[in-house]
């Protein structure tokens, strides 16, 4: 099976480009902490998530180091809390679950875009440098009123 010299060069270049892509996203994630969202099981029945910590008190909690933890419950068809007020410059750890079906949790204009899965707690970090009012939308089809499921993130 002969391979033309120019094809070998092309495949080599292609592989090199793919390696560059993988290296960039790999370093950004594993060296600089820019991971995709992930998380673990809550440990109780999904429909009982609001009966146990931390989702029994949804909302923002300030940490000792100045960062915030935001505990949000998604449900058909809103969020609890539906509005988050965050100081500009704050780093926020979002912890999101659902008490019913899978929902989305996305803040357009940022990289906050995760799946709220019942029985699981998904986690992502974001630093809100720019003040403003951000739309929080459910971008995972969840039922008849899916297109009305939204919240607000106010950064000031």
């Amino acid at each position, binding site marked *: 099976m002969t391979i*033309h010299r120019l094809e070998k060069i092309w495949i080599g270049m292609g592989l090199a480009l793919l390696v560059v892509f993988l290296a960039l996203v790999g370093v*950004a994630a594993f060296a600089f902490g820019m991971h995709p969202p992930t998380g673990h099981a809550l440990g109780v029945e999904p429909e009982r998530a609001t009966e146990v910590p931390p989702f029994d008190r949804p909302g923002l909690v300030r940490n000792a180091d100045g960062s915030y933890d935001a505990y949000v419950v998604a449900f058909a068809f809103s969020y609890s809390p539906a509005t988050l007020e965050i100081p500009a410059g704050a780093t926020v750890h979002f912890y999101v679950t659902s008490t019913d079906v899978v929902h989305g949790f996305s803040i357009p204009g940022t990289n906050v875009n995760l799946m709220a899965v019942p029985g699981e707690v998904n986690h992502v970090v974001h630093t809100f440098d720019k003040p403003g009012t951000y739309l929080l939308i459910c971008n995972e089809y969840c039922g008849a009123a899916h297109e009305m499921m939204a919240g607000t993130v106010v950064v000031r």
Partner: protein
Amino acid sequence: MEGRKHARSKGHGTTLVGTFVSVCLLGAVLAAAWFGVFGLFLARQ
């Protein structure tokens, strides 16, 4: 990658230089799109 010299083809009776340039353009489109969105990702971090 952009600065590579394009190799002359071996004698297979015909040349594939046009092919090589075409796929390089294809690769450039891929790279441009990818770096564009990567830049957007970093800007939104």
